[in-house]
Each structure stands twice: as C-alpha cells, then as structure tokens.
C-alpha cells in the first residue's frame, strides 16, 4: 500500500508538468487553431530564466588572493558577487539561494514578451495554413531556440537547486500510519504540485470569471460569430498565446530543482504533452489537465519493479498504449469537443 501511495505522489508531480504544458498547448490550439510544436521550447526557456537569474545574481568581480593558489599554481582569483557588496553577504546569499522562486517574477514579463514576439512575428502568418505547415515551422523554431540556448549555456545540465529551506524530504509514512521512512517525498515536488494546481486554478478562474475570459471562451466555441459582434477576438487570442507561453515558462522555472535544466529538456516533454492533449481531447482544457495527471500517475506505476518484471518494457510504452485504448473507445479523447479537428 505504501508503494502505491508513493507512486501516486510521483505521478502527481510528473503529471503536474504534463498538465501545465498540455494546458498551454490546448489554450493555443483552442484559441488560435495552431498546433504549436515549440511549446516544449517555451518550457525550456522558462527553466533557463531561472538559470539566468541565478547567473545575474552571481555576476562577480575578481580580487587576487596572494595566499591561495589556482590549479596552475598562480595566485587564486577570488570572485565576489556584486550583490554581496550591494545588499550584504547574508541578503546576497539568500537571494542566490532563493533564485528559483524569485525567477517566477523574473520570468513572467520575459515569457509574455517571448510569447507576443512569437505570435506576432511568426505564428500569425500560419493561421490559415494547414496543420502540417504549422507543425513544421514551430518544430523548426523549437530547434532554433534550443540551439541558441546551447550556444550560450552549453550542453551540460546546469544545477539550479531549490532554496535550502525547501530541500530535503517529508516522511509521509509516519503521517499515514506506515513505517517510518517507507513513504519519503521531497518537499520541492510537493511545492511543484501545489504551484501547478494554483496556476491551473488561476487559468480556469481567469477564463470563467472575467469578461476577457468569457470572450475568449466564446471565441473558442465560435470565432466567426464573436467577430461579427464587433469584438476584436484576434487581439485577445494574441494575449492568450502570451498567457500560454507564460504558463509553460512558469512550469519550466519551478521544474529546475527537480532535474538540472539542459537545452533539450523541452523536447523530452513535448511529445508526451501532445499525447496528453490528444488523450484529454483536442481543445478541452479540463481534458488536458485530467489526462496530464492520469498519464503521469500511470507512467509512474508502470515503472514499478514488479510491473516491469511482469511486462518488460511496459514503462516505455504505457502512455502510448493508454492513448490508443482511449482513442479507440473515445475517438474525441476523454473530454474532447465535437467539431475540433474533425472538419
């Protein structure tokens, strides 16, 4: 039982990432009708916002320490971050340690700007083009973005740890009446899950309870009629693209302490996120979130030693297997809307 609880917890944090990326994908698809293969790259760019902020905080000046030597035996060049001088060593250290949560604020304007630039500079020219064209151009864009990141940050993963107060793990075994140490779960993964739930809740509330959101939902249902009512739906859809980019970016920022970010991390999530969207139902925001968590948990269970020994390789195909079964039984996905991708 404790093993099952542990795998559910594991699935939730993985599912959180899938759900956040799939939510953004569905927002873009539902509003603009664009299949955005660069969405994984937006997740990666968000992660590198956290890396960049950390690097900004650690911009240093050099002083020579005549006593200590470097690897060549020369006097050691000691680097001191400027923020130590500006804010004092204690505050400076705290800023560096808390750079990932602080990067949330840092990344929002950057991701909105990137989203707006992408939509106005490239994507808008492909609204009326076939989905195959959209896929090709956005996939190409994703490769360009990841190569740019590799050029500036290198190919190796860059450690971006969580603040010391949020590292370590909680012992749920004791809380739930199991043996101590049987259900250990890292604090940061809990933070990630809560953060993802808050973002998802925020997006849904925004769409449901604001006039802007109501117009967007109306536009998703019938773009032409909303346009005929004199509402500039295109402008709102552009803002939705920026919002979707921001959601993907925030998912990336908060993911950095879980796995050290590298230029390729977006691609690792992209294909699975598309499967999540298809399983959830093209154009369904609720479906994307539900499928994200469902597939995250299933993937987690399929990796259990007992299951892999019974069905070797199941951990690598489970998501696709479930996708096939769901699409055979419910061709529109779990919560797919009628008419989407069916013309």
């Amino acid at each position, binding site marked *: 039982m404790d*093993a099952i609880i542990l*795998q559910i917890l*594991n699935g939730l944090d993985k599912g959180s990432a899938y759900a956040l990326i799939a939510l953004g994908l569905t927002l873009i698809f539902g509003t603009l009708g664009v299949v955005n293969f660069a969405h994984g790259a937006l997740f990666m760019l968000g992660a590198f916002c956290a890396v960049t902020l950390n690097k900004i905080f650690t911009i240093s000046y050099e002083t020579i320490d005549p006593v200590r030597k470097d690897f060549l035996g020369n006097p*050691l060049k000691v680097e001191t971050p400027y923020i130590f001088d500006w804010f004092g060593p204690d505050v400076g250290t705290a800023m560096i340690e808390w750079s990932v949560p602080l990067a949330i604020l840092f990344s929002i304007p950057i991701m909105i700007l990137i989203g707006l630039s992408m939509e106005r500079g490239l994507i808008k020219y492909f609204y009326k083009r076939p989905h195959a064209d959209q896929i090709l151009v956005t996939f190409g864009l994703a490769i360009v973005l990841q190569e740019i990141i590799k050029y500036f940050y*290198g190919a190796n993963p860059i*450690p971006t740890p969580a603040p010391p107060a949020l590292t370590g793990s909680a012992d749920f075994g004791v809380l739930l009446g199991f043996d101590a140490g049987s259900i250990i779960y890292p604090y940061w993964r809990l933070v990630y899950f809560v953060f993802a739930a808050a973002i998802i809740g925020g997006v849904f509330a925004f769409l449901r309870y604001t006039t802007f959101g109501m117009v967007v939902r109306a536009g998703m249902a019938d773009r032409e009629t909303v346009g005929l009512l004199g509402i500039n739906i295109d402008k709102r859809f552009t803002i939705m693209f920026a919002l979707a980019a921001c959601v993907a970016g925030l998912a990336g920022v908060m993911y950095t302490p879980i*796995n050290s970010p*590298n230029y390729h991390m977006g691609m690792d999530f992209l294909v699975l996120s598309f499967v999540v969207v298809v399983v959830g139902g093209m154009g369904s925001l609720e479906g994307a979130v539900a499928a994200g968590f469902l597939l995250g948990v299933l993937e987690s269970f399929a990796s259990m*030693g007992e299951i892999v020994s019974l069905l070797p390789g199941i*951990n690598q195909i489970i998501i696709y297997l479930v996708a096939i079964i769901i699409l055979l039984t419910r061709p529109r996905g779990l919560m797919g809307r009628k008419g989407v991708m069916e013309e």
Partner: protein
Amino acid sequence: MAKFNPGFSRRGLLKASAVAGVGLAAPTIFSSKSYAYMNEPKGGTVTLGFNVPQSGPYADEGADELRAYELAVEHLNGGGDGGMMNTFSSKALKGNGILGKKVEYVTGDTQTKSDAARASAKSMIEKDGAIMITGGSSSGVAVAVQGLCQEAGVIFMAGLTHSNDTTGKDKKANGFRHFFNSYMSGAALAPVLGKAYGTDRKAYHLTADYNWGYTTEEAVRSSTEAMGWETVGAVKTPLAQTDFSSYITPVLQSDADVLVLNHYGGNMVNSLTNAVQFGLRDRVANGKNFEIVVPLYSRLMAKGAGANVKGIFGSTNWHWSLTDEGSKAFVKSFGTKYGFPPSQAAHTCYVQALLYADAVERAGSFNPCAVVEALEGFEFDGMGNGPTLYRADDHQCFKDVLVVKGKENPTSEFDLLEIVEVTPVAQVTYAPDHPQVAGGSLGKCNPGS
C-alpha cells in the same frame, strides 16, 4: 575481304562490362588507389580526423576533446611548450610533425549517434584523406566507428569509451583504446567500497538500458558480490529517461542499503539528483547509513549534479589534480591555453593523438599495419597514469585507475572530485579471455588499399 576483328568477343564485352559495373557500384571506401595503403600521405602534410560530439548531449565533452586534439597538433608541430611530449618515456617525437610531415586535421560531428559518427568518419577518410580517426564520447559510437575504420583500413584511436566490449567482443585489429573500462572500474572500486562501507551490504542497481550500462552493472556486481555484498535489485532504465523518481522509490521499499547508479551523462546527473532529493543520503537501512555509488565519474557531469556528488564514490581514468610530471605538464599546457583544467576526456584524447604519432615515428611508416605492430605490447610512462601497457591481445591500455569521491568543500568550480586511491594496474588487470570481455577477435590489421 578483311574481317573486322575488334579484339574482344560479345561475351567478353559483356563480362568486362559486368566487372566494371561491380567496380563502379562498390563503395568508394574499398576502392584501390595507387597507394601502398589507405590515404598514404604524399605531400608535406598528414591529415588526422577528429571525430567528436560537437552537437547533442555530450557536446561540452566533445568540445574539450577537440581542445585537447588542437593542443596535441600544436605540440606535434613544435608549437607551445610541448606538454606531455617532454615527459613521455618514448623520445621518438621531435616536434617536427609526424615523420617530418606537418600535422593537419579535419573534424567531424558524431552527434553521439552511431550512424552519424560513421558517416562523419567515412567522409573524413574518403574526402579529406584522414589517415587516422580518433575521438568520441560513447561506447556505441566507438564500436561503430572502430568497425568502419577496420573496413576502411585506417587506425582508430578511441576517445572516451568505457564499455568492456570496445576492446572485448567488438575489438578490432585497427582499433586501440587508452581509456579504462567497466571491468577496471569494478575491480578498483570494490576494495575501496568494502573498506568504507563494509563487506555486508545489500546493493540495488539502476542501469542505463544499453551496452555500456550492462557491462558496468556486470563488472560492479561481480566485484562487489565477490567481497560479500548481495545484489537485491537491478532495474534497467530507459536511456531517454529524465525523471528517475519512479525508479528511486522502489529502492525505498527494498531492503537495499546501497544504490549503484550505472548511469553516465545526463542520466547520471538526473538519477543522482533524484536519489538525493528522495532523502537516500540521509536514510538509514539495515542499521547502516544508506550510500550511493557512481561507477564512472566525469568532472563535467559532476558539475551538472552540483552539491549532490559530495561524498559519493566513483572511478575515473584521470584527474587534473594528479601530481606526476606528465599530468602537471598537460594541465599547465591546457590550462595556460584555455584558462581551465582539462577533463578526463581531453586527457585520453590528447594522449591517444601523441601515442599514434609516436607509433608512426617508431615504425617509420604511416602504414596502419606498421602502426599496429608498433603499438601492440608498447610500454610507456610519463602520460599521467604511471607505467602503461598497450596489450597486444586486445589493444586495451593497462594502467592505474583512480577511485575518486565528490569533494565535501570544493575550492573552485573545477575542484569537484578528490582522489581517494590510485588503484595499481595489477589490481585491474584481467586475462584476455576473462568472461566479462570474452568473445570476438582482433582479426588482421587492414591497411586499406
């Protein structure tokens, strides 16, 4: 009336056409030229082919390999401070190129994909006239390119490749490996682990699901089980896996008290980070502190894992903090030129380039078969690993192996690992027919043309 005699019959013409057609259709790599051997250098220069990952996940390691090769070329041509040429026990190299020919080089991008690596090596051999191919950061790539070089008739000096198979079941007469292998890691690590953690331990292995992972798991399992450890679990993880949490959690459910991560590169960074996140370093199991072991360490990868490597044992081929004259000379040359210390990948590539050049000088010929003869059974010193033998039976170098540990208090971004023990070569030497490396055969050297 004079009868027209063209000199050949219709049938003869057909036969000749068929033979010519087969000849034209055959891959140009096998074509015969008017040379004694493949890509025999005729002018005042000789071209080497550096096949390293310039894109993909090991691009940083590839960049360091390329830096090392450029430094080696500079030293071979008489530039710089000469680096390890000053400490190398063989004094055949004079700093005037190789056999008086100026060394030039071309580069290829392996992308850490076997097919891409073969294509780039083939291009360097066929189009650029490379007489030797060297480099790489993966065993899959090394085995693939080694096979190609054997067919083409050029020498392959492997870069970073750690699988037993490179000089085991996939060994080739034209291929040579300076880097150590999985067996040596297991043999060097086990005694140190026994001393640090005791001989009554229960190990759980997570293993990358490809050739290198299998040979490393086998090597570490057999050496640790031989000293009394029990293996309570071994799970293969997909190479593309990024989040290892679902593989780490079953470890918590098992009665293991040691986790062995047979992972390299990004896999190692992520699995180690996840293991630490799940509190394995703070865990007590079977009344003992839970421990993590990473059989193959790389400083570049350790950097990616950050503070998570602290106190974790592993093995490495070479480390810049070694204080022998050869290592010091190399670190000085490399550090002065590039501003940071070399990685183990850079070291093995630099040494391989010098060893090839030296073998040509001693053989007095670029002919691959003469080079093979010069390298087989060659004993040398002054290259950073103590007295070393290029064993004739399998073209594997036998030398001391380093057991290292993640440093608790690093003084710089390069100072991540500390050397715990220099395991003497005798302890990591095995018979050519040892079960872990058995199979395959070198075959005969192929000079190409």
